[in-house]
């Protein structure tokens, strides 16, 4: 097993035992990831802080929900953060009203959005993997993950059938999985 995997197992065992310092160490390790992703999705620092707190409190309350056989703590927290942030955005009436007003005044175009999203991809490995995707796959998956676009919204925005949006995301996911996860596994 890798050092990272051992660290994950030990830290989660400490968390289950009620070791509060382990939660602090998890925050030190992954707080920036959770906060950054939450802020990216909510586009609001206060909401991002709420999401971050919720994510770590959830892990503290429910350490049994993490299964080290199905991924890393990093992945688990990333998934939690994304979900909490998306749910927060969806439940935020104010955000929805603002977003729809902005959209009505300045309707986005696919290349604009894709460029904006790609600009956030700072990690070289990730940038490289995303850049390697054909544009017809790259645009929808970035819009779906970072902007929360549904298949229907993607279809409308890109002028393609909903089924096509779905299949493009599926292919994009497979390609990213091959290039990112495989590389990560070997690095770990």
């Amino acid at each position, binding site marked *: 097993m890798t050092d990272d995997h051992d660290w994950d197992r*030990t830290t989660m*065992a*400490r*968390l*289950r*035992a*009620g*070791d*509060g*310092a*382990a*939660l*602090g160490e998890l925050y030190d390790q992954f*707080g*920036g*990831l959770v*906060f*950054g992703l939450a*802020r990216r999705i909510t586009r609001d*620092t206060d909401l991002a*802080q709420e999401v*971050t*707190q919720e994510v770590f*409190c959830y892990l*503290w*309350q*429910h*350490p*049994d929900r993490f299964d080290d056989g*199905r*991924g*890393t703590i990093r*992945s688990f*927290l*990333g*998934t939690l953060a*994304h979900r909490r942030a*998306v*749910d927060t955005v969806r439940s935020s009436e104010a955000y929805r009203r603002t977003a729809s007003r902005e959209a009505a005044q300045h309707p986005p175009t696919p290349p604009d959005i894709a460029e904006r999203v790609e600009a956030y*991809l*700072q*990690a070289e*490995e*990730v940038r490289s*993997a*995303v850049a390697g995707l054909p544009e017809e796959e790259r645009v929808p*998956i970035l819009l779906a*993950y*970072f902007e*929360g676009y549904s*298949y229907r919204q993607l279809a409308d925005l890109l002028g393609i059938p909903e089924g096509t949006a*779905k299949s493009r*995301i*599926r292919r994009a*996911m497979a390609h*990213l*999985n091959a290039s*990112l*996860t495989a590389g*990560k596994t070997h690095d770990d």
Partner: protein
Amino acid sequence: MTIDRQELAELLEAYALDLLDEATRGEVERALHLHPDLRDRAASMQQTLSLLAESEEAAAPDDLRSTMLVAAADRRPPGRADGDPPAADALQCYRETADELSTLLEALTDDDFGAETIYGSTVAELLAHLCAVEAYTQAALEGRPFAGDLPDGHRALTDPLVDRRDRSELIGRWRGGRDGLVAVAERLSSDQLGAEVSFHDTMLRVDQLLVARAFELWTHGDDIARAVGRPDRAPGPAVLRTMADTVAELLSGILSGGRGGSGSGDGGQAQGSTSLRLTLTGPGGGSWMLGLGPGSVDELADADATLVADVVDFCHLAADRIRPPQSLAAVRLGNDALLDALLAVTPMLAEYGDRRPDR
């Protein structure tokens, strides 16, 4: 709504991307439990997507860490293992452990009683020792002197039974001692349970003494089980937690040179105001800050050193059944000298509930 396998496979990307509404997400998660391969595939997708998230890493506001830790402690107090039942009280701890030993003894044969166990004693001799210590404990709780002087004279009461190899009578004698001890303990008020008594020249609270006795019964039960080819048995989480609590409390006293430390903490006392965290994993485990200096310690604070070990393994160390102490399977974090001190003094706790014939 029930999602079949094909539908589930179709929904995986949307699930991983959090595009589903709450109700559908719940249906998908229930269905994933029925299809482990698809569950793995979804986890793989989430893993990939989380790598995209790495590019978003950003420094969080400075005060968010402390705010989060306080909020977390409000939701689940630190120290206790997740999902465990409440700790057993001291008498329950003794009673349950004694019942376990009683069940084991009932299953043994005459030949088993002659089997050699720890320290060269036979099972019968070990049980004779327990008979004596049970009587000694009862005398201590009642505040009266004990006829037999430990460690040499205490078996005078039971050695004749060993010599006759009278298994039934020996078991009956031990059960009688157990019942007598329980009867005395049941009459004690909570104040009396919290009062100190002298036991083996060490001052212990009565509740600590009962837990120490339970600890010894578990340990010697394992000694006997091993001698006759039966598997070890660990107490349930509630009892184990009480034992671990007592171990941590006594260790804290020894390491800080306080109660329980006199005459047994050589080399274990650390200087200055330092903190050592003991985190015991598994059912019945928990996490304790052992203060090694004046003042209280913060349960959420980082410690100078942390020892992480399985709760049953650590109890075996406290029972002096893991030698050398450094061979305990544990994760060591922080100050090595503190951790070495902890490992060195932990087996000394074996003397608290017992005084073996070889000592």
